[in-house]
């Protein structure tokens, strides 16, 4: 039970840390993109495309953390026992 509790804590903290860095990264990317569009509105189409690819790349970091968190929570050998205990 204690092991599972620490697993939940690890998944939560990991997700928090992962989205922290991703948030800063995406914020910086969007800041520069908006600056670029403000200076040259004609290039907005190209900037949009490049920005979206970049955002998708940055975002995959948070997605990896999410997948790891899901693995910790659901592929855990103790999950079934805990669910059974909770259902009692």
């Amino acid at each position, binding site marked *: 039970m204690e092991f599972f509790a620490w697993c939940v804590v690890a998944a939560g903290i990991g997700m928090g840390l992962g989205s922290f860095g991703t948030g800063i990264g995406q914020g910086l990317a969007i800041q520069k993109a908006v600056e670029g569009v403000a200076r040259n509105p004609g290039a907005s189409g190209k900037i949009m495309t490049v920005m979206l*690819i970049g955002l*998708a790349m940055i975002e*995959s970091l948070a*997605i*990896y953390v*999410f*997948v790891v968190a899901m693995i910790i929570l659901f592929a855990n050998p103790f999950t079934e026992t805990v669910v059974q205990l909770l259902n009692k």
Partner: protein
Amino acid sequence: MIHPFIFLDWLEHQLHLHIGSHVTYTWLVMALLIFLAVLVKRSIKTVPSGLQNFFEPVIDGIENMIEETMGHKGKAYFPLIATIAFFILASNLIALIPGFFPPTANLNTNAAMALTVFAMTHIIGVKEHGIGYFKHFCGPVIWLAPLIIPIEIVGHLARPLSLTLRLFGNMYGHEIVLMIFFGLVPFLLPLPMMLMGVLVAFIQTFVFMLLAMIYIAGSLEEAH
């Protein structure tokens, strides 16, 4: 959101089959797309009306995007990319209808698509350049090759992994978030998240399509 009642699952249960909802819903999306395609093709006109009005700008947009990112050589791969785009968009959007399960919220569907793109990039590369395609992996100078080849191989293998996990994580994560919000406050609170879901569906389709294009364009260009 994973709805409590998934009607194809129920049907499967009645027929005593064990296929899995991601497969049955993939078939459903395929049937839907084929039906729409036949419907549009049957009544094609110079002055568009009805469904053709909707499909013409979409296909035109995809074609222009391929022209922009891949050059005129890339036009041959329009069917692959447009099919992937339509399939992902349709399967992402049916998640919003009660009783439907999005096939893209399962790792297997995404892995199939990502591996198709991965295999296609290398097949196209070998077809375009013959044996010279392997210069892509050797870096700019020949004596750097022992250093570059392992890096390139890891980089190429990471592509299908990241394509799969990005789409899966986005769709599945969105479902989990919706489920948690629905469990907390079922009234009105999940609504903004559902709006996010529509946005995520379109953006992920766009990103998957664009990355597939970029990967194929990378194997089309000459090695230096």
